[in-house]
């Protein structure tokens, strides 16, 4: 398998609604940005791009099947080959990995990964209904299909099992909204307190409106290359961008129905021991076995044996504050059960930003420096690709160029992870990126 590099990206600003651009126009906005960053024209791109991957989640939102083919011709990339990837909330992350596969295998030298979602075409509660159709439609959906309800049930068990508190979860919302103040692509940017989160309207106990990401319209593009592709780019533009090498990919799946998750043994990471988890029934409904599987296989490939020490930042799929807390544990940043203490210590915050709280260990490993899904929004097909773009800019040290300030630049970022998650932990993928110089 050949080395694969991310070289450029673009994000069409996520918004509650973008009626001015349809799904094709939004992808084009992101694509044009990615090309401009490379000093490449669309005509020249069509000559040198070998193929594409298209990412969008729900046919219900556009009610336009084969939407990928429509985007491709709008971008001027026909007759180059492409295909569409779908995997719930992990669609974007899966698409990035499909692009990796196409380049690593030797099939493509230059691959454009593009994704979008248009969630404003229906009202919020209908949108929730569409999302809930990504649960068992015979047994789960009819009982009251509502993803916020499913996640709430998981965190209630996590609270009972491990003592996690709603204030700890609220700190995730404080962190991500505050980070987003410096991210012009983010949909919701505010300085809030733990009390603001707890006083917000209750959606599914104990999750409030501020514990939950919003639905958005948006698109994102990430361009991947082999070493030959880098040379082709250099010949075409006279430049070589500072690339980020994808050094690990991992994935996992778990039963669609939370009811079916086994109550067995923890899948251990190299730095863990069975004694750490004596008596714990796993994953049950409190942890994401698929996330643990994704972490284990990605770390193995990238040669990571202690992620807290060996990663500089993570863009993590925080559709819910509770999900971020649970994912700290799945990714082995702390032990299962200690996710609440992990956020309380300040470890995943940006080191130099004032959140209004004192933390003993602020900024050891920034998680969601961009503001994550909670603040940026979650146009499903675009989200996982957006994470790849933000990770690339962190590793290039180019956050100031793209965000307008370097408040969110992780200093000396050499290695980071992106994490994309579907359903109640049904598909989870993790990719590791490293500075390519």
């Amino acid at each position: 398998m050949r080395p694969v590099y991310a070289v450029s990206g673009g994000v069409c600003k996520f918004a509650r609604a973008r009626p001015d651009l349809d799904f094709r126009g939004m992808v084009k906005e992101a694509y044009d940005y990615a090309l401009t960053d490379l000093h490449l024209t669309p005509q020249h791109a069509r000559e040198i791009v070998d193929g594409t991957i298209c990412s969008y989640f729900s046919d219900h939102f556009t009610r336009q099947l084969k939407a990928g083919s429509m985007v491709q011709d709008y971008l001027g990339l026909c007759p180059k080959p492409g295909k569409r990837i779908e995997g719930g909330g992990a669609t974007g992350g899966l698409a990035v990995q499909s692009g990796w596969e196409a380049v690593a295998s030797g099939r493509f030298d230059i691959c454009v990964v593009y994704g979008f979602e248009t969630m404003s075409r229906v009202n919020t509660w209908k949108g929730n209904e569409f999302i809930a159709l990504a649960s068992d439609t015979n047994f789960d959906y009819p009982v009251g299909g509502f993803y916020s309800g499913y996640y709430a049930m998981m965190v209630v068990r996590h609270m009972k099992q491990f003592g996690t508190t709603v204030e700890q979860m609220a700190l995730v919302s404080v962190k991500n909204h505050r980070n987003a103040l410096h991210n012009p692509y983010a949909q919701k940017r505010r300085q809030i307190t733990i009390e603001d989160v707890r006083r917000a309207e209750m959606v599914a106990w104990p999750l409030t409106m501020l514990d939950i990401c919003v639905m958005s319209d948006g698109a994102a593009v990430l361009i991947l290359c082999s070493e030959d592709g880098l040379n082709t780019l250099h010949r075409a533009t006279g430049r070589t961008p500072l690339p980020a090498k994808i050094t690990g990919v991992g994935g996992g799946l778990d039963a669609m129905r939370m009811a079916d998750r086994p109550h067995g043994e923890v899948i251990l990471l190299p730095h863990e021991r069975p004694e750490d988890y004596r008596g714990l029934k796993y994953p049950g409904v409190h942890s994401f076995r698929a996330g643990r599987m994704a972490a284990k296989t990605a770390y193995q490939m990238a040669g990571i044996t202690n992620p807290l020490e060996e990663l500089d930042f993570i863009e993590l799929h925080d559709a819910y504050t509770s999900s971020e807390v649970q994912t700290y544990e799945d990714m082995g940043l702390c032990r299962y059960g200690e996710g609440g203490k992990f956020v309380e210590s300040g470890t995943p915050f940006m080191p130099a930003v004032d959140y209004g709280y004192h933390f003993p260990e602020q900024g050891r490993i920034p998680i969601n420096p961009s503001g994550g899904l909670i603040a940026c929004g979650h146009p499903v097909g675009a989200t996982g690709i957006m994470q790849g773009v933000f990770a690339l800019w962190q590793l290039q040290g180019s956050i100031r160029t793209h965000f307008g300030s370097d408040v969110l630049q992780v200093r000396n970022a050499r290695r980071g992870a992106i994490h994309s998650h579907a359903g109640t932990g049904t598909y989870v993928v993790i990719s590791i990126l490293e500075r390519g110089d």
Partner: protein
Amino acid sequence: MSESRVPEDDEGTVLFRVPLPKDPGALKDLTPLIIKHHYEIDYIHSYAQDSPFFAGLANQRLLGTRCGSCNYTYATPRAHCMECGRQCDWVDLPQEGQIHTFTVCHYGSEEFLKETPFILALIEFPGVDTLFLTRVVGLDPQASSLDWIGMRVKARFRRLSTFRPTDVYFVPIGT
């Protein structure tokens, strides 16, 4: 911050005509034009290998499945075993169990909004390996607490069946 605002609705209106600007160069600015578009469908859906479960509900029986080889019992039926792949047998589940976890939905998907607030729960049964998703009725949705976990509950069935999993629901024992 007080908000004086009339609530939005999606009624829209019937429109017969829209004028065009005289200057063709101004046409690019004539956006967005947003229309309402209705869509409805009836499916003819078979429950296939899960059918006995729904017939069971209509007969006041809560049916699960068991793998004769692994001895693994599924509270939410699976016609084939997740471990060994063999076809499972149908078995009666206990009609009393405990709340394993729950939430109170104060909002929901559009289809369920009118039923909020409602309590969703996963029930565990003695001697059964997996859980069952259901509604719990008879608890105060405003009084949710972690103490509800472990509460003993029993099944109740609708008399007029709808052949959906909500034909069964659970109530606290002693109700």
